[in-house]
């Protein structure tokens, strides 16, 4: 078993999930509540990774981060960071690629909340932020949690973006999915089988948990 790959994958998935919780929640709340007509464009951009081939997203990010682009060269000269083939690089790719898997369940959860509960809280003199903490979060929690689990699981299995951006550097960018590919390339079917079984079991558990979360009682 490739423990380096397991550890790296867990780090990548956890970091992606945390970042998407922090930026996805406000973005989803805004999408669910705004009446601005440009909303559809933002929605389309957020959804794009679902239909876009991962390699395409990976390719563009690679070019953008690379030393020949304005962004890449600026990052390198000003901050001294190089993104391609690093953990930060694949993390950025992973966050962008997983945006829809977090934001869409969040938006669905916010939309399913009865708006009058929020208005009732405002009319009781409770501020918008407090209302979000005391009404929106507790009532939307199952949907938010489902989005986070989906994001985590999806990152664990991500292949295309990581390969394009990170290559295959053990301990740095070689995740479990890439390790399977690598094993097969090296005709090590036993190792590939072990890792595959691990990911298979993990996926089944994730699906069971999300199903359990979306049962009617947990939504009250």
């Amino acid at each position: 078993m490739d423990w380096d790959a397991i550890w790296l994958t867990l780090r990548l998935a956890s970091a992606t999930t945390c970042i998407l919780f922090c930026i996805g929640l406000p973005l989803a709340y805004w999408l669910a509540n705004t009446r601005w007509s440009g909303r559809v464009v933002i929605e389309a951009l957020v959804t794009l990774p679902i239909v876009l081939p991962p390699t395409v997203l990976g390719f563009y990010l690679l070019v953008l981060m690379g030393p020949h682009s304005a962004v890449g060269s600026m990052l390198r000269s000003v901050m001294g960071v190089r993104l391609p083939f690093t953990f930060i690089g694949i993390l950025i790719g992973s966050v962008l690629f997983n945006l829809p898997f977090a934001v869409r369940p969040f938006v669905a959860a916010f939309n399913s909340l009865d708006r009058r509960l929020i208005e009732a809280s405002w009319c009781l003199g409770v501020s918008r932020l407090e209302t979000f903490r005391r009404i929106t979060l507790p009532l939307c929690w199952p949907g938010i949690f489902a989005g986070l689990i989906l994001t985590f699981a999806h990152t664990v299995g991500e292949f295309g973006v990581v390969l394009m951006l990170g290559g295959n550097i053990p301990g740095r960018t070689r995740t479990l999915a890439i390790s399977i590919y690598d094993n097969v390339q090296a005709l090590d079917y036993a190792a590939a089988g072990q890792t595959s079984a691990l990911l298979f079991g993990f996926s089944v558990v994730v699906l069971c948990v999300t199903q359990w979360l979306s049962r009617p009682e947990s939504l009250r």
Partner: protein
Amino acid sequence: MRDELVAQFDKRYLSGAEVVIDFHQSCTETPVTALFGPSGCGKTTLLRCLAGLIHPDRGQIRFRDQTWYSHELNIALTPQQRDIGFLFQDYALFPHLSVADNIGFGLRDRTVRPAQVAEMLRLFDLGGLEHRHPKEISGGQQQRVALARALARRPQLLLLDEPLSALDALLREQMRGELRRMLAELGMPVILVTHDRVEAIALADQVAVMDAGRIEQIGSVHDVFTRPKNAALARLVGVETVVRGEILESHDGLVIVAVGTARLLAVAPLQPSPFVHVCIKGEDVALQKGDVGSSSVRNHLTAIVRAITPEGPLVRVNLDCGFELTSLITRPACEELQLKTGDRITAMLKAPAIHLIPRTHHS
């Protein structure tokens, strides 16, 4: 400081609908105002503008010495800044919180919160339910919790959106009396929205009839429902019979009106006009079979029963007495008369019960 609520504003919707409001309410003399009208007439818009949940496009809203909204001064207070109580149509109780936590939700001072919640539980007869969740209590109890929650902060103004419509018919009747009693005890200005005539009559001191985005008539419950300003309003407030008539003669404040082939004695309208709309409420038309004998009722009309429709405790009887007249009588009265379609009967109608609205010749 003027002790009143003033709302003068307009709000236009993308659909083209426009709500134009000019509304004053004294906070002391007429504490409970009902905004009455069909759905889509703008009454909910007015209520939500008062709450600050939506803002008008132009105009101003003032409450006592505070400006809540002013287009000119660029003021638009949020609901949090207005110190109001709002009762939502289906109560909008927080499903994840207990009855006690719902009631105490808006109370900021943690030290006095338990005492205040206990006080509200007692006032609204909710003792023993404090740990239940909203799903686990009855509709009537939910309404009391919602009202207790809205009043726990002792707001300056109470807004009720269709307060009884979420209850079933039987409970609605019980709660009507109870709510009236509670509102009277509060002594705080209340504005409620309803499309139910009975609800407006039972709960309000003053009624504002709204239609197509405008307040068409505002006055006491009695005035609005028995003395509507025009024929359209008469139909809107549920006057069963609105027909055209012509005044034939007039003396001593009384007039003889020709309606169809019938002649009616009525009290003269305030503005003299030969052409009138004749408004007759169904409950003012009494029915009798056979010989009438002597009676103080001046109008005795021979009528033929055209249709009999039961409506809850009442029966609606459509009559032809030279014009189409509708009578509302109780079910036992209907059984006693043994009414059948086609029967010949006498309809009796007191002169003061006939409301005449002047009209132009062609209207």
